[in-house]
């Protein structure tokens, strides 16, 4: 019963170095194997919670807003449900991305230590970083798609342009998620810092960066805070493509800002993974 170390069973050669993109994809594949076993635990928070927001705010609060007056005027004459639907998708993408780049990244280094296992194979730390970010991208994309379909069934989607809001949501989620992944990769703690991130960055951003009401309703001195959030840029874009009225120049500006955050985040994440796994 000695182990066969010559790999005669299948006749294929022993280990070799997978191609660059393939190596990244193999990490995604491993996350998928895990997800297939464990998706139930996260399905509620990532897919159903945003629909609760949509129903409670859009249908519940919406009846007051749509009744007329200053509020209805401020959102530009669309129904409140249609007004918030694209933005809730973007805000959810940020929340889901946050969930996937905080504790899971820390766990890869500290608890499960699966990053260390992968780094001892031909796959490099930067490829692990890319793989994790690509996995998060796909996950938040999948959640956004499920949300969009159900929102459409609820009559919350104003136009077919909402299809374009999907990539916007994913881009925005990763524009926030990638830099946060880099930060998570620097931590050597039990993750106490993450509750600060949730409470003082993600939640306020969701509430005040134009998801449920236009930021013009904020005092003028607070608005710049909304401008620096990726969520505001994502909300403007997602609403623009869904409800119309998006001017090319501001649109370009929003996309450029989000892309800049994303690229910086990816580069930093690669660097932090490399520093930690290959020192």
């Amino acid at each position, binding site marked *: *019963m*000695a*182990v*066969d*170390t*010559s*790999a005669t*069973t*299948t006749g*294929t050669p*022993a*280990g*070799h*170095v*997978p191609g660059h993109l*393939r*190596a990244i994809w*193999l990490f995604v*594949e*491993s996350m998928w*194997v*895990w997800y297939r*076993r*464990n998706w139930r635990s996260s399905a509620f928070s990532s897919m159903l919670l945003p629909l609760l927001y949509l129903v409670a705010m859009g249908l519940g609060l919406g009846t007051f807003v749509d009744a007329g007056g200053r509020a209805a005027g401020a959102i530009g004459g669309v129904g409140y449900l249609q007004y918030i639907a694209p933005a809730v998708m973007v805000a959810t993408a940020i929340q889901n991305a946050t969930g996937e780049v905080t504790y899971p990244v820390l766990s890869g280094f500290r608890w*499960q*230590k*699966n990053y*260390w*296992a*992968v*780094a*001892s*194979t*031909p*796959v*490099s730390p930067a490829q692990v970083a890319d793989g994790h970010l690509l996995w998060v991208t796909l996950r938040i994309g999948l959640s956004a798609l499920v949300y969009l379909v159900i929102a459409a069934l609820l009559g919350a989607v104003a136009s077919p342009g909402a299809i374009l809001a999907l990539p916007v949501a994913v881009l925005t989620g990763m524009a926030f998620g990638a830099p946060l992944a880099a930060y998570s990769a620097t931590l050597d703690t039990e993750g106490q810092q993450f509750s600060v991130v949730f409470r003082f960055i993600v939640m306020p951003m969701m509430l005040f960066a134009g998801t449920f009401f236009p930021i013009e309703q904020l005092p003028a001195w607070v608005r710049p805070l909304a401008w620096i959030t990726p969520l505001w840029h994502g909300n403007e874009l997602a609403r623009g493509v869904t409800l119309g009225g998006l001017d090319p120049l501001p649109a370009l500006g929003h996309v450029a800002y989000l892309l800049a955050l994303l690229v910086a985040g990816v580069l930093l994440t690669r660097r932090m993974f490399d520093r930690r*796994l*290959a*020192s």
Partner: protein
Amino acid sequence: MRARGLVKRFGDFEAVRGIDVEVRRGEAFGFLGPNGAGKSSTMRMIACVSPRSAGELRVLDMDPDVDGPRIRARLGVVPQQDNLDTELTVRQNLQVYGRYFGLSRAHVRARAAELMDFAQLTERADDEVEPLSGGMKRRLTIARSLVNDPELLLLDEPTTGLDPQARHLLWDRLFRLKQTGVTLIVTTHYMDEAEQLCDRLVVMDGGRIVAEGSPAELIRRYSSREVVELRFPPGGQDGAVHRVRDLAERVEVLPDRLLLYADDGEGALATAHQRGVQPVATLVRRSTLEDVFLRLTGRSLVD
């Protein structure tokens, strides 16, 4: 694997201070030393996951700085702490890991079955890893390290924390691997492990190599054939030292006992009794690497 003047620095701290090592193909080679001797840092450099700070290093005839991924493709690594995916099954752990070596799904499926057989884990194939015993997890980690048919297997403290039965089972598996021609490099702070597994070893202390040879050679060179242990109540050994000093080539005074290094242990013990030395317990045994280490560094391996 060959290293010349190999150095690893972390900031101001020098973990490995210029070591020369050569491991030949098919050999089982050990790094023996206490915690903090620089064994794990050395292993990480050989595993191509930690760039060297200075010196020369060739692994499988390649330079880790240039060919890291190509070398890693042909290595098996058993880390000090298990890093299995505890939320996946035994089988999935092997298959997922195998895929990172560019192996096809069919290949890793077949290989996983073979390796579970080898590691005696077939019955637990589709169980999650989390509830497995420490020994089973360790066996799975070793099985996982073989998924790519490595030419060189690196084992960092392979049996630390396991009970004796689990350790013997692991040693047996490693011995079989050696029979099939796999080169083994093992770090350990257990002298029995080094004696069981290694054809040749180096003793490391404080980032340097202090001795090199086969276990038998090292014992011959640095110790006597036999050792007499005389155990005393605390403090009692001091009065006895001068009465046994001439019975052995060397006498070590430990907190609770005296070690007499003599080729004829029984004879030395009998003489000690005649002279009225009255220890509470005595033992005559053969010399081990523990004695070699004590001789070389003045300290014991396991603190």
